[in-house]
């Protein structure tokens, strides 16, 4: 049995977590995609899995649907132990994959109808579910068109509507806005915010900082197959970057020298293109070079922890 569409208070975390991953390892030949992953997603929250490309986010998503089987560790989804009970878990979750796997030979309505059948939604309920999904995705007037004729943004909205057709308790969104225009990204964000309002548990992977900052109640930063930091965006910023940071510009040689000095003096820094950013600038005691002070962001945390630049 599951919670219906009535809104739950945010982070109403009584009972079983929606997702519990413990010590998960997944290798592809010599590549270790997921390397001792620990992750717990409470039910009712929008959880952001933030990490650079290749951090193991998609493999984690595939492990949650039983499409990749962990080599070690344990995974349970909505209280069902994977991989044995994966089908039970999949009946209660919806998945929007990163790689477009929309059935482009079908019309919009047919895509939704076939997915309703795959989720065993029958009869009158199926018709109602298809209409609801059409309204949700704003594709009502394109219902009879082949999915291949839709724009990229419309296809993504259809993929999300398709993921919701079985009225899931848990929704997995793998890089939901990758490759989309800014305006279209806004549309997808409102769809995700609406899910959050309805009390669905959402696990969203992304490498866009802003997306995690705007949508996620809770963020885990992944790097090299494991979680390197976790908390609310505010907690992460406070802990890993402080209240204020300092951007100092200079030539690459100067920046490299400053970085060495900072390291020796015990100041945490991170590279940001043509500048060096001193983290925890509010706590530093006068020894910092001249530069521009600003509030710390999740981006500072992300780059400091993963060593990756962001777009």
């Amino acid at each position, binding site marked *: 049995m599951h919670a219906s569409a009535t809104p739950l208070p945010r982070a109403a975390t009584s009972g079983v977590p929606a997702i519990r991953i413990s010590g998960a390892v997944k290798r592809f030949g010599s590549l270790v995609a997921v390397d001792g992953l620990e992750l717990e997603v409470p039910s009712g929250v929008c959880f952001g899995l933030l990490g650079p490309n290749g951090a193991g986010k998609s493999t984690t998503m595939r492990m949650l649907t039983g499409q990749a089987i962990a080599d070690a560790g344990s995974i349970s989804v909505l209280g069902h132990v994977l991989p044995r009970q994966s089908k039970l878990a999949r009946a209660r979750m919806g998945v929007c994959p990163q790689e477009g796997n929309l059935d482009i030979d079908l019309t919009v309505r047919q895509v939704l109808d076939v997915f309703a059948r795959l989720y*065993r939604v029958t009869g009158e309920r199926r018709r109602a579910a298809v209409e609801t999904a059409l309204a949700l995705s704003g594709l009502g007037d394109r219902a009879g068109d082949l999915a291949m004729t839709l724009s990229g943004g419309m296809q993504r909205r259809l993929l999300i509507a398709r993921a919701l057709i079985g009225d899931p308790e848990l929704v997995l969104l793998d890089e939901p806005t990758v490759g989309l225009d800014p305006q279209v990204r806004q549309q997808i964000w409102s769809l995700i915010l609406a899910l959050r309002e309805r009390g669905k548990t959402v696990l969203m992977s992304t490498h866009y900082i802003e997306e995690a900052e705007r949508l996620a109640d809770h963020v885990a930063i992944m790097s090299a197959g494991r979680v390197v930091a976790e908390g609310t965006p505010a907690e992460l910023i406070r802990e890993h970057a402080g209240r204020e940071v300092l951007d100092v510009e200079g030539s690459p040689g100067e920046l490299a020298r400053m970085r060495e000095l900072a390291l020796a003096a015990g100041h945490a820094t991170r590279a940001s293109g043509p500048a060096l950013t001193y983290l925890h600038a509010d706590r530093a005691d006068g020894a910092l070079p001249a530069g521009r002070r600003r509030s710390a962001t999740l981006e500072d945390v992300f780059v400091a922890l993963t060593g990756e630049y962001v777009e």
Partner: protein
Amino acid sequence: MTARAIVSPGRIEPSAVAAVWVRSWTVFKHFWHTRTFGAIVEPVVMLLAFGFGFGKLVSHIDGIPYLQFVGTGVVATSVLFGAVFSGMFDALYKRRYQRVYDAMLATPVDVEEIVTGEVLWLGVRSGLYGIVPLLVACAFGLPPTPAMLLVPAIAVLTAIGFAALGMLFASFVSTFDNLSYVIGGVITPLYLVAGTFFPLTRLPLWLRAAAQFNPLYHCVELVRHCAFGLHPAADIVHVGALALFALLAWRLAIWRTRARLID
């Protein structure tokens, strides 16, 4: 509370198989004219070419007019081609390029159910198209018999096996090009050593023995017996051989397709 469908892990559920089947049927509704055109014209041309061309050289085989001999044989080859090619090309396309199977596996549907749904769909479609040559042969003078009503069932059973074999082949390759090996190395021999165009009695003994392991041969025999007189004892063996082949190909296709789809 919403009434949620009950799913049972570890079992092949008819509702899941039906959903996979309906997806193919829905796509087919967009393409039925081209598929049907090909499925009808090809065997008809083959039949006319062999029947009238070759028929000038060979008038009768085992007392049967050559056109009627070939007409019954071509039922089997059109089932073979319809099922095995769709099994290979559709499965590879859906797995690798369109990623339909990946999308399905994120829903409460398992690899067993996908393969079963696909194979049953192709079995019914290719099996029913396979009857066309028989109808053409009837139009050219083959007398209809009541036993011919069994031909659709035989054709569907054969097509299920060959569709599963096609899916099995597709699971070994990553590109359409690689399927050429299968076509040249496996399908062409199957098609020639089945008694379709000439009776097996003209072949060397070792090839006749090998033909017993060719599912297509059993299909050819059954269709001919439906047209020219049943041999109950032998026919039960032929049906058994086709059923065994279908069962084996289906299990192997599931096993290999799972290895391809689940990391």
